């Protein structure tokens, strides 16, 4: 027993010296890729934001000119407002409905794994393609939603889903929530399944109502995973592009333009690469803030739970 452990130590000692070399070699493919196509573009994007580059013409450094222009640009501020509105409303709804669905799926159900599989479908299918289905569902004349509501006698004429500013905002948020619920629900369900049923039983023996069991047992145990899931959800909602591009392309009158879609519109069809990059860079502080927020929220929770897990 002691001889083998000595031998182990020796062979490890021999390897330890070239571990760094070995590690670098193994990291090389991924490292080169990420440096080339992730780190470099990230830096280049920040640089482009300070230039007046257009498609087909290299730009020159113009300092903060792009940002000054954006600062006076009401469309840009509208897109910031839209992005924040879109992200906050959609995230809250996704969280609420996702948690509800997760709690339902955590109950004893017949065909449970079947339901779980079905529920994840909206998330698996390409967003652009499901957004096309929503486009058809939100059609101004032949919307199935309008038709059903008219048949039920709730409204008199078709709803102009994507033509009116506030309707359009609500419609894109609804489509985003539809796509986002499965991710939240299935992730939280995985978290719920790690909570030991004996805790629930103990609480109910102590006379806790179902609401109390949820509030004081389930929710605190679930908080760390909620923080991570919602960080991801907020990040992806904040930088959403596909849904808006398919459903409204930012219209009507920029009412649904998000920062990502505005960045695309100014940068690629508009040809103003510098300005588009500046808008994209303007998203970074928001993203960092949400990551830090959830990171520190998570730390605090761990500490509150006495550092367990």
């Amino acid at each position, binding site marked *: 027993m002691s001889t083998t452990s000595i031998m182990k130590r020796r062979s490890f000692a021999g390897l330890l010296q070239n571990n760094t070399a*070995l*590690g670098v070699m193994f990291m090389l493919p*991924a490292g080169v890729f990420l440096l080339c196509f*992730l780190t470099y573009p990230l830096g280049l994007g920040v640089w482009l934001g300070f230039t007046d580059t257009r498609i087909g013409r290299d730009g020159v450094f113009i300092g903060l000119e792009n940002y000054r222009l954006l600062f006076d640009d009401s469309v840009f501020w509208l897109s910031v407002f839209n992005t924040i509105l879109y992200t906050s409303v959609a995230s809250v709804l996704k969280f609420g409905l996702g948690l509800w669905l997760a709690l339902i799926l955590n109950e004893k159900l017949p065909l449970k794994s079947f339901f779980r599989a*079905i529920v994840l479908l909206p998330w698996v299918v390409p967003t652009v393609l499901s957004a096309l289905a929503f486009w*058809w569902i939100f059609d101004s004349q032949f919307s199935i939603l309008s038709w059903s509501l008219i048949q039920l006698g709730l409204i008199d004429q078709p709803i102009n889903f994507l033509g009116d500013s506030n309707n359009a905002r609500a419609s894109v948020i609804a489509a985003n929530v539809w796509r986002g619920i499965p991710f939240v629900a299935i992730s939280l369900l995985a978290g719920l399944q790690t909570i030991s049923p004996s805790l629930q039983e103990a609480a109910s023996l102590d006379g806790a109502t179902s609401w109390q069991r949820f509030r004081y047992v389930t929710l605190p145990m679930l908080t760390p995973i909620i923080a991570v899931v919602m960080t991801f959800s907020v990040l992806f909602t904040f930088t959403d592009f596909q849904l808006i591009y398919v459903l409204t392309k930012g219209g009507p009158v920029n009412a649904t333009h998000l920062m990502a879609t505005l960045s695309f519109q100014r940068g690629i069809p508009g040809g103003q690469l510098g300005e588009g990059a500046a808008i994209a860079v303007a998203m970074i502080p928001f993203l960092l803030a949400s990551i830090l927020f959830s990171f520190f929220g998570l730390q605090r929770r761990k500490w509150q739970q006495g550092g367990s897990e």
Partner: protein
Amino acid sequence: MNVSSPANVAPVTDNVEGMGYVSNLPRRIVTIYLPLAIFVFVLLFPFYWMTITAVKPNSQLTDYENYSPFWVVGPTLDHIKYLLFETSYPGWLVNTMVVAVGATVLSLAASIFAAYAIERVRFTGSRQVGLLIFLAYLVPPSILFIPLAFIVFKFGIYDSKLALIFTYPTFLIPFCTWLLMGYFRSIPFELEESALVDGASRWQILVKIILPLAVPGLISAGIFAFTLSWNEFIYALTFIQSSENKTIPVGVLTELVRGDVFEWGSLMAGALFGSLPVVILYSFFVDYYVSSMTGAVKE
């Protein structure tokens, strides 16, 4: 956690519900089955609508007076025929497949080495590299596409499938590496130690011990990466110009939607057929999907 309940006055009552073994049926119907049914209906309805539209004859498509919109009388294959024989759709399907497989294989290979190096070689700074990989996962494509378009253009691969195969790994490698790190971590160190003692090289250990044990992880990462590449939109929209190089999401949106007259039938057929490959893949590997999704979120 102090539970402020009248625990001392009320003993355990017989109507403690929601624990599975003590709940009564009518209550379960209202609190569980009904909401579940509504959720499932809402989540699936767009797919039903997509399917029914794809096989509806044009005359019924907008005629809600004479035909119930929820059903179809005399389904037609015209839209699907049009899609397959009169548009570039089959070509886009092949492109998407090539790009998704290429990007997945490339990312998986790079990620296996990276994850193994970070998790098991434990070189100086491996923890920091692991953290950087996680942060790279959080960088969204929406802030990268403009500078990437610039780089792709400089590399001379603009408007080619290579542009997509090389740029998709920017989000696939961080994800796959992060996922595989978790799988590699769960493989006992002792196996590797005994192989080292027997004189195996790191390469042999990786190929003969770690990889066979990490097959579920590889499947999870692979199918997930494939799905993400299949669904990718913003890079494909930005880097591809010519019709023959487009992927499904871009092709359907930019070429099947034209003018003011929407051909909803063929559009929905395009959406349906574009979704089918990932849905079929998904149906075979549901558990792997769930584990990769939750694996990415854990820790």
